[in-house]
């Protein structure tokens, strides 16, 4: 129990926790969207994120021709590189997610297979993707070049606030708002909400179920791709295993907030980012996940459907 560390570093822990929570949140959205519509955990989603990290690496190094040796960029070329990398990562992850749906879900869904069968086929896709990148990268971690010079923007009650984290928090926040608006305001969003309420009735009302489900996976994938890029921006390296750790945390976040509930997932993600940082300081980093899971169990005991309650609209059928 290291209270002194927690007290001294409280604000920088808080700040880092929010930045971490933003990345978790973007991944958690994918879990929660798919769960809201299909009532299924998308076990391959962590690999969608993993592909996002690799896609941003490829985008920056190959497409933009920026390598580890180069000095950080400034001005317009920096922004261009960052935006192009972000967009390529999002597209790559989005397409992967759509592919996952086609391969692992669609056929099984149309045959009325059990939840568990779908789970296993998603796990199969996950294993395949992890192994594919294991082979492609020779199981070695890959370093991401520093496109943007990292500097401290300002000091906040003793916490030095770094520019990359500010960018992450702002950009992730923006994306979350866009997604929330998309779900709540647009026609497609209405379709997603309808399918999550009642698939059969939605189909009778003329909603193209397959298209909506593909769209849901696409949205989740886009968010995971953005998370992949932001992850690379701060942590600057990736490996084929990166999906497991981040995916597990993000999934925990989604459950913590109430899975199937978009705002719940975000709340859960920020809460989890903070909890992980605080408990890491308090008990040592090694015990971080033990604390996280214990807390999750406690929350679920008293509020069995997560903090904000499950599902976009109503309880599970």
């Amino acid at each position, binding site marked *: 129990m290291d209270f002194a560390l927690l007290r001294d570093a409280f604000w920088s822990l808080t700040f880092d926790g929010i930045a971490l929570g933003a990345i978790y949140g973007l991944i958690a959205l994918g879990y929660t969207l798919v769960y809201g519509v299909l009532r299924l955990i998308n076990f391959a989603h962590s690999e969608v994120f993993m592909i996002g990290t690799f896609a941003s690496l490829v985008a920056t190094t190959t497409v933009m021709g920026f390598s580890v040796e180069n000095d950080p960029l400034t001005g317009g070329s920096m922004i261009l590189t960052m935006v192009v990398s972000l967009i390529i990562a999002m597209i790559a992850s989005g397409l992967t997610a759509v592919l996952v749906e086609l391969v692992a879900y669609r056929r099984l869904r149309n045959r009325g297979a059990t939840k*568990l069968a*779908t789970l296993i086929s998603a796990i*199969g*896709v*996950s294993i395949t993707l*992890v192994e594919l990148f294991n082979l492609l990268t020779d199981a070695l971690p890959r370093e991401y070049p520093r496109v943007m010079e990292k500097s401290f923007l300002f000091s906040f009650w003793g916490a030095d606030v770094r520019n990359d984290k500010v960018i992450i928090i702002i950009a992730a926040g923006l994306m979350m708002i866009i997604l929330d608006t998309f779900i709540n305001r647009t026609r497609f969003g209405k379709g997603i909400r309808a399918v999550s309420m009642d698939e059969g009735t939605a189909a009778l009302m003329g909603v193209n179920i397959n298209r909506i489900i593909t769209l849901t996976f696409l949205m989740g994938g886009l968010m995971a791709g953005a998370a992949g890029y932001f992850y690379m921006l701060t942590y600057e390296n990736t490996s084929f295993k990166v999906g497991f750790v981040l995916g597990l945390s993000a999934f925990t976040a989604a459950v913590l907030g109430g899975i199937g509930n978009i705002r719940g997932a975000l709340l859960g993600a920020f809460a989890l980012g903070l909890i992980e940082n605080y408990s890491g300081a308090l008990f040592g980093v090694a015990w971080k996940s*033990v604390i*996280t899971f214990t807390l*999750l*169990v406690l929350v679920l005991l008293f509020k069995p459907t997560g903090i904000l309650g499950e599902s976009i609209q109503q309880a599970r059928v």
Partner: protein
Amino acid sequence: MKILGLRESFARWWIRQNRVSKTIFQTLLILVTFALPFLENPVLDTPGSSYQAVLFYPISVFVLLSIGLNIVVGKSGLLDLGYVAFFAIGAYTMAILGTETNLNFYLILILGMAFAMISGVILGAPTLRLRGDYLAIVTLGFGEIVRIVAVNIDAIGGPRGIAGIPTPPPLFGNEFSIIDPKPYYWVLCVLILIAILAVRRWAVRRPGRAWDAIRQDDDVAQLMGVNTFKYKIWAFVLGAAVAGAGGVIYASQVLSIAPEQFSYNVSILVLACVVFGGIGNLWGVILGGFLLAYIPERIRFLSEYRVLVFGLTLVIMMNLRPDGLVPRKKWEKDLLLAEKEKGQR
């Protein structure tokens, strides 16, 4: 898609047999199973790894674990993603008691099962009120916690684990040693046999019916007077006991264990065995455990591509046969379908 209606024709043939020929058939099957280590041949052989060692681990260990997990996931419909925790607890019991004390192996076996059962209660009591996916994430977390605790406590070896675990005393003149996995295989076969008998007994009696009811509809089962919580705990605890026993024997064979052997992947693999073989069907599960443990070893000649091929196999098989190789009995599937239609109306 049916695999040539093999299952139906076998079931029809089986029903027509009288008691004597059934007994003969069963005895033959058991004998063949026990004789498997001697039946080393080019078809069954596993190039790249010792055939006899593979028979013990992963094959028979995974068959045992699949039978245990099937009680939890298949019979009572509780999704457990942290099953490896109980396996780890059994293995660590063997490692700690075996190196620190000189208790008899069979006593440790019972103790290992007991500890796994106790941890099953500890995990189950607060969490079994949760449903479906929440239970999945909590059990997943439990599996990770057990592993992380093992990594972080130096008294039990930390990340290096425990080495020098003693072998069991000789049994009927069979020396247990690392070079000869046959006796271990036979001990596991006996355990698997006991597990099969026990599960088959439970399945037709009160617990089995209670589990069926809970799986089909928790609320209705409770309304009908089934003490659902009690039977869920029992499913959990019995599944844990099977995994604990597997863990003890596993530890006594490999002689040194480390937390990394008990990662989340093992839980997923066992779950894959259960679903792949045919969830809820004992023979399907055994077949699934056998195949999913055997295939990666058999295709070891693909060396680095084997896990990739394994993943693809899972996807393709689930797409072709979503109910597993040997599905649950048919009437239940019909019931599920009817249920689904009702839900959609």
